[in-house]
């Protein structure tokens, strides 16, 4: 009896407080994102007061700290693009083949053991990958390509690929596994071999899921910082040659962050403007990936 005599006002008030705190927690992430975007836009605005957006997007030299100042982001984009392409060239085939094997060929026991192990690769800190690229992979590659520079795009690209394999393998495996059994059985009933089923039925059916995993992988590679900051060098250069030192957008931000560019100067603003560019690219990629995944979820429901 005592419980029901609680004053209703206080009860409602409590409810409201709890509701508000739930709302606050769930929207905290959004607030932080809004704050980040606001600061990026604010500092970028200051930057574009001094440098034209055309020069920024089309310039082929990036030397904001030097005597002849150039603010063309293309060399940084080229570096990011190059390492990302190499990473995906490694991660896509290996990741996809692993996914197919785990989903279609291996036994259930093997799968339950190997899949968590594969995902453990993703738990290796990226700084470890960075030094792995610099001190192990690069010297190894130099035995094969004697002209490979000590800082280059190739080695961090490959290591980034290794890092992304579990991401692509795991998400693609989910997508392939989710293809209804009906489709598989139908194909087998027509006398198709296992490889034919995989190539002609499963991969096309799971296409949007696989594509979404690859795009997530690309966006992970573009945003990856530590590996390229350690092993790719620090020289912004407009090239697609993977054997020479380059600099990616993220590595540039690290370099400036470690120095002492005074706040409010254009040198300081450059890290925000390249950060904003990076944000725009990964945001677009993540949106595409999200849309693809949504399509894949709808397909067989």
């Amino acid at each position: 009896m005592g419980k029901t005599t609680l004053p209703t006002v206080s009860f409602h008030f409590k409810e409201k407080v709890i509701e508000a705190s739930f709302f606050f927690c769930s929207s905290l992430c959004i607030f932080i994102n809004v704050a980040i975007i606001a600061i990026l836009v604010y500092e970028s605005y200051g930057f574009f007061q001094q440098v034209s957006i055309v020069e920024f997007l089309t310039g082929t030299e990036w030397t904001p700290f030097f005597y002849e100042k150039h603010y063309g982001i293309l060399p940084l984009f080229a570096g990011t693009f190059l390492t990302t392409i190499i990473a995906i060239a490694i991660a896509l085939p290996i990741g996809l083949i692993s996914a197919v094997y785990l989903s279609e060929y291996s036994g259930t026991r093997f799968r339950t053991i190997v899949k968590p192990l594969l995902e453990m690769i993703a738990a290796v800190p990226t700084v470890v990958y960075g030094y792995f690229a610099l001190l192990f992979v690069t010297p190894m590659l130099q035995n094969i390509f004697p002209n490979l520079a000590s800082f280059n795009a190739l080695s961090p690209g490959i290591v980034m690929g290794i890092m992304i394999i579990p991401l692509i393998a795991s998400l693609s495996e989910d997508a392939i596994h989710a293809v209804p059994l009906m489709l598989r059985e139908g194909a087998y009933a027509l006398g198709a071999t296992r490889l034919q089923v995989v190539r002609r039925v499963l991969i096309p059916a799971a296409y949007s899921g696989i594509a979404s995993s690859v795009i997530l992988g690309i966006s992970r590679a573009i945003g990856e910082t530590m590996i390229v900051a350690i092993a790719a060098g620090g020289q912004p250069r407009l090239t697609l040659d993977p054997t020479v030192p380059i600099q990616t957008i993220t590595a540039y931000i690290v370099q400036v962050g470690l120095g002492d560019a005074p706040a409010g100067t254009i040198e300081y603003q450059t890290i925000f403007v390249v950060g904003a560019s990076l944000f725009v690219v990964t945001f677009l990629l993540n949106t595409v990936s999200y849309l693809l995944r949504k399509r894949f979820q709808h397909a067989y429901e």
Partner: protein
Amino acid sequence: MKKIIIPLIIVTVAVVAIVMYNSNRSSSKNSDSQVAGTANQTSVIKIDGSSTVFPITEGVAEEYQKENAGIKVTVGLSGTGGGFKKFCNGEIDISDASRPIKSSEAEACQKAGIEYIELPIAYDGLAILVNPENTWAKEITVAELKKLWEPEAQNKITKWNQIRTDWPNEEIHLFGPGVDSGTFDYFTGEIVGEEGKSRGDYTASEDDNVLVQGVATDKNALGYFGVAYYTQNQDKMKLVAVNDEDETNGTGAVLPNYDEVVKGTYQPLSRPIFIYVSIKALTKPEIKSFVDFYLANAGTMSKEVGYIALPDDVYSLVTERFKNNKKGSVYAADTEKGVTIKELLEKEQ
């Protein structure tokens, strides 16, 4: 009404974020000036000047403060010129300098009635280094270094044979310190002719170990560093001798080994560095004790932070000079190139 609320919240968050961000920035600026303001109340030794000398002075100051609680040593880095300006205004007690005082600066001091003792404390030297597998670059002239590093070379001088035609037709990978480094200022000042004037398309890092790693594993690399980094990594890199094409201070190309630096023949990439002590400040006993401590530790500290210590007999001459209150600079406008500190100090005695 509800439709407006969400955009309204977002805009508010954005505005609040920017306002907080800006106030953070300005408050961190204020706190710097507060330190300077409160510093006057205790016993303070004020030092400012060259960023090259800074690591040694800072190191000595740290050790000194450990042993002498209650005395505060502040070390600034306004550059050699900026340091002398403050020094001759009587704002600081000791000025760090990576070159002897200029006659214009000496005049300014004289006008203000500031007398001083000049004390050499170490050598600063830069080494040009290549990979051990590099068989072609054994020596390089200052003019060639300028051609390689000046801003006009950016994206143009990219191959070895553009510097010397009998060098290979291969890409040259450049490594050097970043723009915040004193080494960068020194190199660009001496080689290109103006401090800070450099090409920008090279691997720039404030972390010398990155540069060592770069040169040590890249056949086509060329880099410049403080000499000390070479001493620690002799097996990984190869020195390039530098020829200044001036026969008055050593003929031909010279390697930056200890003897050549001390003799003053490794030019222009080695130089003595100094502290200048105000005579007026020496009336305060803590300043005298600090300078004594500095001279006793300059050798070890300079090695520790990557410079070349003066020979022991020169340190005794310098200590002698300080003890005897020898005013002024041993460098005159007509001081010849290639004269050693030892000769200058002995001549004075």
